[in-house]
């Protein structure tokens, strides 16, 4: 069982306040949906949670222990997917999985064709990433989530570029992760998230 708690987080950029007094708590088997208008500071918040940025004020507790941005037990437990697709254009799909993803915290896949089948990219092994469509790139970068099992997923608009089928697959995967006692923090512009046990946080 894990728990993540944020108390009164605030972020400033010079004299401009990005957000103040953000608090939430999240336990295993729950997900947090971060909503808000453009520029409300969703990405800033999520980057603080991923340990890439520091809050100016407030506290973050992982398993009831406070951590600084470089706490290794917390860092080792999370998987952060940014809104960028985090792919190198002139590698092939296969090379991305074998070489790039291990650099980005995923294990080398044991059965590549099976995992590619999972995200609907079977048969594209030798295609270069730059030749894939935006949706296919998104599927490929989501594959990283499956390659190493980490309890906390932090996802910045994961369903962008995905078609209906892709979205269904994505939310199925998230749902499965949550029911396996995982935790998910997700930014989404969707009107409605097809997830159970979802808390929402409005910025």
């Amino acid at each position, binding site marked *: 069982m894990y728990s993540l708690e944020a108390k009164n987080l605030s972020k400033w950029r010079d004299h401009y306040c990005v957000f103040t007094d953000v608090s939430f708590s999240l336990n295993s088997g729950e997900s947090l949906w971060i909503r808000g208008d453009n520029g409300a500071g969703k990405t800033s918040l999520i*980057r603080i949670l*991923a*340990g*890439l*940025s*520091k809050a100016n004020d407030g506290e973050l507790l992982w398993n009831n222990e406070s951590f600084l941005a470089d706490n290794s037990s917390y*860092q080792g437990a999370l998987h*952060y997917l*940014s809104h*960028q*697709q*985090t*792919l*190198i*254009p*002139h*590698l092939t799909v296969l*090379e991305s999985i074998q*070489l*790039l993803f*291990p*650099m*980005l*915290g995923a294990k080398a896949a044991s059965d590549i064709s099976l995992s590619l089948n999972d995200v609907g990219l079977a048969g594209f092994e030798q295609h270069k990433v730059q030749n894939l469509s935006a949706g296919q790139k998104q599927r490929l970068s989501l594959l990283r989530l499956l390659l190493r099992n980490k309890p906390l997923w932090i996802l910045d608009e994961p369903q962008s570029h995905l078609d209906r089928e892709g979205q269904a697959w994505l939310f199925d995967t998230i749902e499965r992760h949550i029911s396996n006692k995982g935790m998910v923090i997700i930014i989404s512009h969707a009107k409605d998230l097809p997830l159970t046990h979802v808390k929402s946080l409005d910025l």
Partner: protein
Amino acid sequence: MLLSELKTLYKLEWRQFSRSQGQWLFPVMLFILVIVLFTVGIDPEAHRLQQMAPAVIWCAFLLSLLLALDHMWRDDYQNGVLEQMLLHSESPLQLLLHRVVVRWVLSIVPLLLCLPLAISMLQMPMTIFMPSLLALAAGSFVFWSLGSALSALTLNDRRPALMSLLLLPMAVPIVIFGSRVIKQSAMGESVSGLVLMLVGLSILSLSITPWIMFAGMRLNLD
């Protein structure tokens, strides 16, 4: 754990190098072009060429490296790979340092292979080959590591010129010592002291720059 990480890094860098659609040739082409332009700017008589040669070789070499330095972090910064690498690495400092060294080797080897060509174009004796090779390797490492640090510091700036303007004033000592190596070895004098000086500078830069790189990245990723 770290070892396997580094092994993956080497493989990844090599794959990117071999897939870069000839991009590794651009610095080499620039190197030759600068020498050609310098030469057509004067009357190419042997003694005049020999007088200019040390400066021309060094300036052409460093300018070509600038071209390669521009891609040191920028591409990975823009597509988000850099932050993920730092986030998930066991030892980000070492990872960055290894990447700097790998890229340095991949960039200077093609340039050094052109050195005999440059020497003969400038009508210098081939005896200067070995000393200048050593000096160029050591001097370029100082330049390269400082350049990587400064480009990490200027990641958020989209204009590629800023890093060059910060870096080039710092190249003054390298060019002074380095071109002296070429000049003295052409006259048959001993240059080991000068080469050692450049090696010393590269050790100094190796001990300082990883911290600057790391700080620069943290700052620009915030």
